[in-house]
């Protein structure tokens, strides 16, 4: 079902494109040797290059180039062996040079494709227009002083990748799924930490609306949205605003807007009136960036397995459903944990336990996959006890909880508490006989056709055996004795 917004004049389609700014993981900045580490004392990670001192020249960081290429490869995009830097001119207090070194005409990465998955399982491809390298600006703070804004240039000059999508996105859900997918890919690649709270990933959202079948109408750009949820809200709020403008006979003006999460609305940023007059020109301090094909091939050969490929491989190697595999590859650490447990074991059993009891325990205890509630080795040992029928599935849940609580190994818990599964048919038969004898009225009801009582008898037998009976054997014995 296509997403449509209902206006007074009928249904409207939403058209969205995203520009994602992703901070490159590197030791030092894009054009200077100052540290690219987040935070630090004010203006500590700043060199004369970053502060725009006269006569300072930029020298490009090889690793930042490699990171951009890796990301391009991860987006199945064309890598441009020739790219060039341009100056994007604008005046702002946290931009010491009065220009940002960016790539305008010749970006390092060209067109690519990203596949997103929606709630209902639909897969959709979103086109990537380009990815280019640029410098981040400094940080202005307006609440530290009554009459002044204060500026910290620690972030100024840190490398950013701007990832531009085609206007292929058609709903808030798709916008959210796309942003999450890009974040997942850069995290797998280790090219950006994807931390939206710290601002190392943020999005500019381009929104327009149209009647189905029409050409694109005028779009507005919502700047610097810093969470998946806000991107989704901003798309909807801005689309509603534009529909209202069109339907009341007005015209949407192309402009830069700001999303206000507390009010759930967008508003115009008048200060950015001149913002689109960037007067780009080639950066005279830098030669074109020319890459060898062998450099790209080498990076491609060492690229880690990406989430989509891993997901398909998990389905093939471990026989788990596509959906479950998607949950397990959500992040690399979870995928690695799963794989270390599932290897040589029943992949489906492992997946079920991870999506069920394991994640539940992780959330409940506030732990993480890096610091899991039970170790991969212990978790695997527990699954082995189920597989070799030492314990049944019901008891395994109790053992698991005990493991989470005490950190003890599953084997030790089973021995200590005497939880071994009873497979002795003599003992099971005796328990069944007793349960049937104690519930003769129910037996009579069963025999007169109340089939559902079968489960009751099994339950009573299991209870009498403190849950340790082998479920298959108990079932069989009950069936036999009821005749």
């Amino acid at each position: 079902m296509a997403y449509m917004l209902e206006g007074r004049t009928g249904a409207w389609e939403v058209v969205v494109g995203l520009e994602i700014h992703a901070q490159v993981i590197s030791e030092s900045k894009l054009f200077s040797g100052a540290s690219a580490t987040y935070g630090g004392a004010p203006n500590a990670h700043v060199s004369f290059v970053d502060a725009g001192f006269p006569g300072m020249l930029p020298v490009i960081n090889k690793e930042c180039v490699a990171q951009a290429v890796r990301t391009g490869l991860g987006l199945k995009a064309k890598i441009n062996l020739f790219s060039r830097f341009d100056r994007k001119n604008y005046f702002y207090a946290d931009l010491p040079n009065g220009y940002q070194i960016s790539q305008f005409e010749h970006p390092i990465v060209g067109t690519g494709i990203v596949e997103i998955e929606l709630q209902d399982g639909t897969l959709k491809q979103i086109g990537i227009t380009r990815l280019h390298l640029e410098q981040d600006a400094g940080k202005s703070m307006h609440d530290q002083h009554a009459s002044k804004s204060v500026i910290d240039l620690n972030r100024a000059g840190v490398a950013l990748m701007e990832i531009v999508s085609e206007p292929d996105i058609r709903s808030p859900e798709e916008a959210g799924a796309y942003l999450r997918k890009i974040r997942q890919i850069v995290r797998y690649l280790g090219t950006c930490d994807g931390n939206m709270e710290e601002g190392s990933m943020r999005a500019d959202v381009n929104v327009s609306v149209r009647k189905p079948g029409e050409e694109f109408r005028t779009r507005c750009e919502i700047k610097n949205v810093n969470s998946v949820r806000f991107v989704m809200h901003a798309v909807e709020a801005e689309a509603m605003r534009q529909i209202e403008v069109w339907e009341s006979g007005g015209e949407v003006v192309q402009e830069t807007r700001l999303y206000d999460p507390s009010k759930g609305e967008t508003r115009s940023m008048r200060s950015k009136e001149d913002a689109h007059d960037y007067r780009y020109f080639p950066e005279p301090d830098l030669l074109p960036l020319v890459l060898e094909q062998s450099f790209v091939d080498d990076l491609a050969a060492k690229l880690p397995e990406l989430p989509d490929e891993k997901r398909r491989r998990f389905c093939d190697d471990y026989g788990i459903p596509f959906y479950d595999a998607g949950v397990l590859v959500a992040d690399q650490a979870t995928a690695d944990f799963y794989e270390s447990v599932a290897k040589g074991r029943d992949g489906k059993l492992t997946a079920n336990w991870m999506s069920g009891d394991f994640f539940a325990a992780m959330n409940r205890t506030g732990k993480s996959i890096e610091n899991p509630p039970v170790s991969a080795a212990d978790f695997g040992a527990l699954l082995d006890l189920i597989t070799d029928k030492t314990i049944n599935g019901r008891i395994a849940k109790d053992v698991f909880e005990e493991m989470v609580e005490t950190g003890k190994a599953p084997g030790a818990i089973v021995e200590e508490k005497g939880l071994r599964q009873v497979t002795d048919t003599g003992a099971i038969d005796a328990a069944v006989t007793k349960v049937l004898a104690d519930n003769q009225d129910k037996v009579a009801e069963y025999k007169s056709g109340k089939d559902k009582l079968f489960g009751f008898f099994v339950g009573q037998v299991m209870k009498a055996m403190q849950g340790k009976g082998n479920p298959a054997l108990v079932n069989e014995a009950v069936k036999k004795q009821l005749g």
Partner: protein
Amino acid sequence: MSLDAATVRRIARLARIRVDDTEVETLKSELNAILGYVEQLGEVNVDGIEPLSGGAQMALRQREDYVTDGEIAEKVLANAPDREQNFFAVPKVVE
């Protein structure tokens, strides 16, 4: 190509350079003279010639990713017209 007075004012505003009304006419003719001089290049036939990105046909020098600079906040702030502790301070700019 010829600049009008409004364009001169706009360029000045984008560059944050204050230009008095009395200066606009002078600047206009000076800028137009510069543009006219550069426009002589238009007479050269460049059909089929790739744009050149620099005079020197050499590769961009790249550096290794090491931290070799920074941690000089005092020096960076030394010429700041105004500061608040180790921040640069500017007139309040709020959206």
